[in-house]
């Protein structure tokens, strides 16, 4: 192909205390292409992007941009932006309380007599939004827009600042399928205009839907650059994992043999439990050794349902029985004392305690359960932390490393370790695999199944139906805050699940 090269990163290396984060990594971006950067957690994707955008300083290697005679060195994201490199992150870095137009022109507002020229700003915004076909009014408040629109606005802002290279760091993680499609349309449009897009995602389908090329990293090293059409999925996964065996298939076969015992008394039994405004009253039984999946679209009430069970939101009607006994749960600690554990959906906000060490993050739930006065001995803490770092293969420099310096997947493992340490009978996992690489994903899925084999009751929530079909023995479907179906046995296939989620027809009332 004879495309013009926009950006070359050559022999990039970067190390952190005790870890070589990048070793001689290459990356080339051509004009008008969408290039996926793939790799497991800790492969070095984020580090590479941060080196490119000037968040980190590179140790060796060089970055060349088309049109610049000398290698460029970015010291800050602002400098990168001035060089034509813009980034849009998964979490939108805009101001929710300003209008769309204000966000688009923040820091570079058109001025007239020293005052902001609102008219020009709104007119320019309208033109920009129109040219990119983003369906939103310039005067709308940003917080009123859906997440997808917000992301598109962030992209529009980047585009308007004449970026040649656009980095999209997991923009699709919190979008639903429709929104993803809209985002893709925008990406293709930009591609046609000659922008080079670096796209980071964990969803394989998305890579094959929009990307022209794929660069794979593994453990901070460069694996290779491939044209998407020449690299079948299985090969891509193998390159990312560095092994040929198909782990996913293995899980599937394990699952088909997996059977749980029918117990008389369910571990968890909810009757007309509900919380006004989030989840309508529902019934639910979960037995020992069973993996029950909750599925539905974003906002269907799947997270809200488990929050009520766990006492994160206090239920305002109905009753809950735990192992046949009536339970009164008004706060998370009550649920923990009854043997529950809960991995929340939003890892950053509700999960990790960022500045605390891996050790402290692992033991904190058990410590809270024991009470304020019975401090665990230092030895007990160390042993517990080491055990779960080892068992879950958490990649960390040490047990005293602050958890915030771990990659997303490893942070998630720390939280799983935190709950396993409390030896729960019932474990709630709300999107444990979101934003996590395939290797860790399969590891977590396997773990869930082995926990269930040991008799734990598990509730598993995931946006990926495929993943749930592999792990769950029963699935509950929710729509608009209401339980609309329960599937098991032969009904557990993609088609039936999708149909139930979508609903429509017969009994939609």
């Amino acid at each position, binding site marked *: 192909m004879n495309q013009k090269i926009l950006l070359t990163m050559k022999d990039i290396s970067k*190390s952190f205390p*005790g870890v070589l984060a990048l070793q001689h990594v290459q990356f080339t971006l051509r004009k008008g292409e969408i290039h996926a950067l793939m790799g497991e957690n800790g492969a070095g994707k984020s580090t590479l992007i941060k080196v490119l955008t000037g968040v980190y300083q590179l140790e060796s290697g060089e970055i060349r941009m088309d049109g610049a005679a000398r290698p460029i060195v970015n010291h800050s994201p602002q400098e990168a932006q001035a060089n034509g490199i813009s980034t849009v992150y998964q979490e939108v870095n805009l101001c929710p309380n300003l209008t769309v137009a204000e966000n688009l022109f923040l820091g570079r507002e058109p001025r007239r007599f020293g005052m902001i020229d609102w008219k020009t700003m709104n007119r320019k915004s309208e033109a920009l939004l129109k040219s990119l076909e983003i369906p939103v009014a310039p005067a709308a408040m940003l917080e009123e827009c859906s997440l997808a629109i917000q992301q598109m606005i962030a992209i529009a802002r980047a585009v308007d600042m004449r970026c040649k290279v656009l980095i999209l760091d997991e923009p699709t993680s919190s979008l639903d399928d429709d929104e993803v499609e809209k985002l893709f349309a925008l990406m293709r449009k930009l591609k046609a205009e000659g922008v080079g897009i670096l796209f980071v995602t964990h969803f394989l389908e998305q890579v094959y839907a929009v990307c022209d090329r794929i660069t794979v990293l593994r453990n901070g090293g460069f694996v290779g650059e491939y044209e998407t059409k020449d690299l079948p999925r299985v090969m891509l996964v193998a390159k990312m994992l560095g092994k040929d065996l198909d782990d996913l298939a293995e899980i599937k076969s394990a699952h088909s043999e997996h059977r749980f015992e029918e117990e008389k008394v369910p571990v968890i039994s909810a009757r007309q439990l509900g919380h006004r405004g989030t989840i309508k009253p529902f019934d639910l039984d979960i037995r020992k050794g069973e993996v029950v999946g909750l599925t539905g679209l974003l906002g269907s009430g799947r997270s809200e349902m488990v929050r009520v069970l*766990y006492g*994160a939101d206090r239920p305002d009607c109905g009753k809950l029985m735990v192992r046949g006994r009536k339970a009164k749960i008004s*706060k*998370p*600690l009550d649920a*923990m004392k009854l043997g529950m554990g*809960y991995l*929340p959906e939003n890892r950053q*906000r*509700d*999960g*990790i*305690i*960022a*500045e*605390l060490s891996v050790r*402290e993050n692992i033991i*904190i*739930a058990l*410590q*809270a*359960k*024991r*009470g*304020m*006065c*019975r*401090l*665990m001995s230092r030895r007990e803490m160390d042993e517990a932390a080491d055990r779960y770092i080892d068992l879950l293969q958490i990649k960390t420099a040490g047990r005293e490393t602050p958890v915030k310096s771990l990659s997303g997947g490893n942070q998630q493992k720390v939280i799983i370790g*935190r709950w396993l340490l409390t030896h729960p009978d019932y474990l709630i996992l709300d999107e444990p695999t979101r934003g996590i690489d395939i290797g860790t994903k399969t590891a977590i899925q396997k773990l869930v199944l082995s926990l269930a084999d040991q008799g734990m009751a598990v509730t598993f929530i995931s946006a990926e139906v495929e993943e749930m079909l592999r792990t769950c023995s029963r699935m509950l479907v929710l729509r608009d805050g209401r339980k609309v179906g329960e599937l098991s046995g032969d009904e557990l296939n993609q088609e039936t699940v999708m149909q139930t989620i979508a609903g429509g027809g017969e009994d939609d009332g």
Partner: protein
Amino acid sequence: MAETKPSVWKKITSNRLFLPVVCLLVVLLINVIRTPAFFQISIRNGVLYGYIVDVVNRASELVILAVGMTLVTAASGGQDISVGAVMAVAAAVCCQILSGGKVTTNAFQNPLLLAIVAALAASALCGAFNGFLVARLKIQPMVATLILFTAGRGIAQLVTQGQITYVRVGTYQVIGGYIASCPIPTPIFIAIGTALLVYLVLNKTALGLSIESVGINGSASRLVGLNSTMIQFLTYVLCGLLAGVAGIVASSRIYSADANNIGLNLEMDAILAVALGGNFLGGGKFSLMGSVIGAFTIQALTTTLYAMNVSGDQLPVYKAIAVVIIVTLQSPVFQEFLKARKVRRRRTAEGGSCG
């Protein structure tokens, strides 16, 4: 890059207490240069005498306040600006009970223990009020504690009925003076004792870890079973209680309850002590030791300036200059700058040896 074992020097410099200690040492060093007799300790009239003794003695109230302020800061990411006023309340309650309602007394009208317990209860109540506003009603700490900051001294005036109550009893002056023939001032014992006690409570129970956890991420802490509200509330009660202790010490020094002057502007010094100790005022991880060192630094600075014959009116200006320097030294931007310079130097040194 070859893995080098961290040298002892690096270990020391990377310790979070390194900078606070350096700042304290610098202040002390300036003292020694200006006043060679600074570290001289002599015994006069059977008690220790000297600049350094004075610094440690005078810092006692600040140390006690700084300990409480550290906890509040860590758990709620905000500061309690009412501690100075709460000191006045505690002093007023204590003296008023001892004097039995009279303006001045030469003998205890009520048992000393009763007065102290009542004063501490009153200050803990003030702390509980602050804690309720912050932890339960989620009012910003600065705003919540502003209430008692303004009203506290008025309450103290109400308690003493607008008078300065004097307690001219030797036993009362022991708290701010000396125990029998012990040459070391009592406030030093009280300050060290309080700091030690709080340290033990934090580290022998899960309270220390819980406070940090709640301060870093309240939402996640709740989900792992910590009672965030209760823990924040507790730190405010503790902070109030410690302000009470400091108030009693301060009032014993002048054997009276001067509602207008006891603990005046001390809340700002206490906040500064926490910051100088290398603690992040936005909450989270904290170091009690750092705050204690910070408190001593501030007191050393004040004493130094007095020793240099700076008048009380001009004192804040010089203090401000010193504080700006110390805070700049500890700021992350300056730290980055130093680090970058070091790397550059090493690079040029390496380049030189190659060529």
